[in-house]
């Protein structure tokens, strides 16, 4: 579109003649720097506050024992266990689907074909749907439709076994929420694989499927890993999708079946912060839980950032 570029240049030409030669732009520079500093300060205040108040609570006992006395004492082990179980199940569900979608978009279709466009629109929109809507969907579809359906067909007279909130339904809901994350970072990895490599594989007589399985996917492994880690980080932090699909206030046992309910770190924070009869008493435990949750998500993000920057460096070198 030559005209647009010309328009923009013309606009600048018009103004350029009125530039004052000594105008150093101190004001815009200062204002935008202040905005940047403010954002950094906000993050620093949140982090320091949580670390300062939460650090004293963290101990091996806190991490390894269950809550006691209505969450005013004891630890958060069931919540940590539940969170890990949730994200493991979620990862098992989301990674294969996300990777295959990215492979299809990148290796099988042309970027401007109609199918690609439809899938892309769906991915972008999936990423923008509010998490509470995922929670509603999980309740209406997984619990109310799939779960109740399984019960009525297989376990007709045993009361609700699957047609109730459970960790499997929460994981599936979370898998839908994190699907775009996995697709997008897998695609980035696929883009960094040089065409010559694929051509060489095909020239040696490999079929397309063999090329994907033995050349492309192994090469894209760091990107797939990044996607999985980012998805885990997101899944560990979201609360709204699991509120109605499986998370419990308090459970005296750990989940050991797919249709058990579970405790979760983020939900635990929400419960303690809003439903506790005596907020002052639960405060140390509350801060400790927030610190564990923050450290968990930040460490995961950090690992993802490091892997991703390595992929990008590799691409630059080629």
């Amino acid at each position, binding site marked *: 579109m030559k005209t647009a570029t010309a328009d923009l240049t013309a606009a600048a030409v018009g103004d*350029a003649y009125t530039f004052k030669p000594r105008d150093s732009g101190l004001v815009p520079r200062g204002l935008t720097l202040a905005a940047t500093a403010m954002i950094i300060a906000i993050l620093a205040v949140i982090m320091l506050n949580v670390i300062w108040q939460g650090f004293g609570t963290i101990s091996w006992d806190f991490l390894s024992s269950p809550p006691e006395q209505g969450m005013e004492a004891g630890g958060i082990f069931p919540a940590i266990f539940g969170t890990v179980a949730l994200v493991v199940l979620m990862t098992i569900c989301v990674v294969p689907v996300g990777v295959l979608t990215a*492979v299809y978009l990148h290796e099988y279709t042309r970027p401007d074909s109609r199918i690609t466009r439809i899938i892309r629109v769906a991915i972008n929109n999936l990423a923008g749907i509010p998490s509470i809507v995922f929670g509603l969907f999980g309740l*209406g579809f997984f619990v109310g439709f799939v779960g109740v359906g399984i019960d009525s067909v297989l376990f007709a007279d045993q009361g609700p076994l699957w047609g109730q909130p459970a960790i499997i339904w929460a994981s599936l809901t979370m898998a839908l929420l994190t699907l775009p994350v996995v697709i997008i970072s897998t695609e980035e990895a696929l883009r960094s694989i040089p065409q010559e490599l694929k051509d060489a594989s095909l020239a040696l007589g490999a079929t397309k*499927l063999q090329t994907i399985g033995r050349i492309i996917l192994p090469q894209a492994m760091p990107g797939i890993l990044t996607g999985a880690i980012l998805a885990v980080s997101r899944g560990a*932090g979201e*609360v709204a999708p699991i509120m109605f699909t499986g998370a419990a206030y308090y459970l005296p046992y750990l989940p050991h079946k797919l249709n058990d309910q579970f405790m979760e770190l*983020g939900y635990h924070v929400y419960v303690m912060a809003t439903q506790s009869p005596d907020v002052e008493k639960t405060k140390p435990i509350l801060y400790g839980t927030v610190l564990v949750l923050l450290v968990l998500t930040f460490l995961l993000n950090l690992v993802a950032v490091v892997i991703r920057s390595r992929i990008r460096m590799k691409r630059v070198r080629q």
Partner: protein
Amino acid sequence: MKRYQFKKKSRIREFLGEKLIAVTSFAAVIAILLIFVFIFKESTGIFTDPEIRQEASIDKMVFKQEYYEGRAPKWSWQPNSEVPKYSLLPLLIGTLKAALIAMLFAVPLAVGAAIYSSEFASKRMRELIKPVIEMLAGVPSVVLGFFALIVMATFMQEIFAFRFRLNAITAGIALGIAVIPIIFTIAEDAMTSVPASLRDAATALGANSWQVSFTMVLPAAIPGIAAGAVLGFGRAIGETMIVLMASGNAAIISASLTDSMRTFSATIAAELAEVVFGGAHYNVLFFIGTLLFIFTFVVNLGGDMVLTRLKEKIQGKQQ
């Protein structure tokens, strides 16, 4: 050498493999359709079930209702009272209040920082800003809600002497913190995608670095910045945990920013656990979910289109 010796080609396996991959890749499309169908399906009682319509029809959710004989008609959200009231107006006002405060707080900061990062920052400074934004994006919203509820609310009340500890301003600012990374990322991306040739042209005409930024780069990137703000607004409307924890959850009609308030999303989160499966209240909550879905769908679609067009335009790509 063994790695490079492939087994005999199997056409059937190739065919099935491709079809399997193709089918799987439609998961996202199917998910979107299923989400819409199932959320809408759970709210159809509002349109079809006469018993539910007595309590909650579209009329009753939108217009003033005379709930008690002899008293003035009004808009009210009180689903658990003896006479259940399902007016959506108090929730709509709360949602808009929180989202607008969030935008007033987030847009100047995010766009300012994006301009600084793309135009003025040294390479080293940029290497500090990017991770900070990514970390901020990684803070779970429940943690922001917790921070607003426990720390910010008390602090703000002491400074400004708010009558209510939890109010629209506190919730709005916390919400603003949550959407800063989205707006920053999109705005920064729009500015850095302005091609070097345009910058060079302006420089050659005698503009210094900030003049290039403000007369060339910013005007070219304005649609992208606007799209970032709109997508941030969409996120602010749907965000749940922050407003659920920090807004006070009072469903009242009030123009005051220092009153407690309640949003659509927080209403779903707070009330869904205690409703009768399939009852009027249940249907109304899913209807609110449908509204949220449609709203964010439209916002995302629009934002995407603007961004795609912009990139094609400023990078001179022809369709």
